[in-house]
């Protein structure tokens, strides 16, 4: 986690999918401090979106820890802008939502996910095992 899903009616080109995944990974990790290996980006095309949007982004992200409301709002805003920029779309042509999931409800690398902000110790443990 995070898992971002990108829905669109038209299939994005390989270059677009790579650049969107790169932008989301960069923004998410820059802002939250999460390691890049946590970030999953999944594309789904052929989807008719509400309100005539071209692209719909949903991120399921860890909640709690060092993530307050301001940081979550900033993350949502910057991902929204970043994906729009890569796809040369206006902000209005994209929908964007984030859903917070408690870290302790998930497991990766054989361990319960770390609380946001406690990734370093978690990575040391999982890489050592």
């Amino acid at each position, binding site marked *: 986690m995070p898992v971002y899903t990108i829905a669109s009616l038209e299939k994005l080109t390989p270059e677009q999918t790579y650049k969107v995944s790169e932008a989301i990974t960069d923004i998410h990790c820059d802002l939250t401090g999460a390691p890049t290996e*946590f970030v999953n980006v999944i594309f*789904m*095309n052929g989807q008719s979106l509400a309100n005539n949007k071209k692209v719909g982004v949903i991120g399921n992200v860890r909640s709690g820890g060092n993530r307050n409301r301001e940081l979550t709002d900033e993350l949502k805003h910057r991902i929204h802008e970043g994906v729009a920029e890569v796809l040369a779309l206006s902000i209005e042509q994209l929908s964007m939502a984030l859903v917070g999931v408690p870290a302790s409800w998930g497991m990766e690398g054989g361990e319960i996910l770390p609380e946001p902000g406690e990734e370093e110790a978690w990575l040391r443990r*999982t890489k050592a095992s």
Partner: protein
Amino acid sequence: MKKSLITIQQGQFSAYQLKQLNTLIKQNYRHYVSSERLLITWMQIPQDQMYCDYKPSQSSIITIEAPDGFPQNKRVNMLKNTQDQWLSITNQVADNLMLTLIDSSLFSEIVASNQERLSLLGKLKMLKVILSSVLASMIRRSPILVNPNRGE
């Protein structure tokens, strides 16, 4: 009835492995979580449509609905045992497997956010895809497999 969404790459596992994994999740759900029926939907994503850490992904992502207020010690047991058994069937490494066991209220919120993203036509198309996948699964006695990439 509770639900589970499992995201994998298309062609990542054999039909036999998928059946084993489907059975594993259902058995563990019954053992660790609840006797309530669990409906598992497998989302198969083409390899070039899924990334992790800037690269095409090798990951499998398992999301399972649990009753609200599910005890954390039982959650950890379910996740740990399911992970170990999954890895022994697939030979994946633990870094390529993410499991979440999410309380029902939040699971519903996640499903709702995906629904709200779609237009009425989009919802109807998705419903048609899921219903035909359920029917195919009943006929073939196989897991429910859905490819959400319909513009392929």
